[in-house]
C-alpha cells in the first residue's frame, strides 16, 4: 500500500472539552513519525490549543501538587509535535484561523503555529493526499 505524504487535518474543538483533541493529535503524531507533511487548520475553539498562557495546576481532589500532577497542556503536546517533526524530518504547518484567534484573544501562542485563513486551508487541501475534518458538536 502506498502511503501518501501530505495530510491536512481540520480541527475545531477547544482544549479540554472533547475526545477529539487527543484523537486528532494522535493522528498527527502518527503521520509525523512517518515523516509526512502535515498541515493542521485549527478553526474556532481549536485555536486555543496553542495558547502560550496555558498553565498546569494541582489537583485538590487527588491531593497532588502542580509538580506531582504534571497536568498536560495542549500547548505542550503541540510543542512536542513540532519537536517530533524536527526529529523525523517531517513538516508540521499549524495554522490558526486568524479571525477565530482575534475573537478568542488567543494570539499569544507557543513557537511554531502561524496565523492563517480559509485560503490557507484550501491551498493545503489542494496539495494533500488525504484530508480529515474533525468537527465539533
Amino acid at each position, binding site marked *: 500500500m502506498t502511503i501518501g505524504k501530505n495530510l491536512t487535518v*481540520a480541527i475545531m474543538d477547544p482544549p479540554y472539552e472533547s475526545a477529539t483533541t487527543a484523537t486528532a493529535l494522535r493522528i498527527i503524531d502518527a503521520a509525523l513519525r512517518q515523516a509526512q507533511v502535515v498541515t493542521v487548520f485549527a478553526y474556532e475553539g481549536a485555536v486555543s490549543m496553542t495558547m502560550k498562557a496555558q498553565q498546569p495546576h494541582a489537583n485538590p481532589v487527588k491531593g497532588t501538587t502542580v509538580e506531582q500532577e504534571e497536568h498536560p497542556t495542549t500547548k505542550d503536546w503541540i510543542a512536542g509535535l513540532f519537536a517530533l517533526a524536527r526529529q523525523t524530518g517531517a513538516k508540521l504547518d499549524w495554522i490558526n484561523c486568524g479571525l477565530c484567534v482575534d475573537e478568542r484573544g488567543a494570539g499569544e501562542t507557543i513557537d511554531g503555529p502561524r496565523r492563517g485563513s*480559509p485560503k490557507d486551508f*484550501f491551498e493545503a487541501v489542494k496539495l494533500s493526499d488525504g*484530508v480529515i*475534518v474533525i*468537527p*465539533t458538536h
Partner: protein
Amino acid sequence: MKILSIVDTAYRATLEEQDDTILWLNHALRNNGAEVSILLSGNAVNYAVRGQDAAGLAFGDRRVAHPPRLDEDLARLIAAKVAVFAVEEDIRERALPADSLVAGIEKLSRAGIPEAIERFDQVWRW
C-alpha cells in the same frame, strides 16, 4: 476538485458569530476558488426556512447588533452558484412547509446521498 460540505449541527454559536461558521467557511472557500456544495442535514435543514428572525437579544445593555440571517446566507451561497442540498426526510420530519424554504434549495433523499457523494472529490462532515 469538487467539495461537499455536510452541515449537520445547527445554531451552534450563531448568535455570537452572527452567522453559521461552517456556511461562512465554505463561502470563504468559494471566494478563494473552491468548488463547494453544501448538504444540510439533521437540524441544519432549518437554516433553509425563510424569514428567521433572531433580532432582539441583549445582555444588560449589550445588544446583538447584527443577528444571524442564515436563510439569507444560504440565498447568497446559491446566488454565488453554490449548490445547496437539504435532506428531504429531515425536512419532512421537522414539518417544514415546502413553500417556506429558500428558493434554490435542492432536496436530496437519504437514499440518494451515497450516489450524490460519489460526484465529489472531497466530502467533509462538519
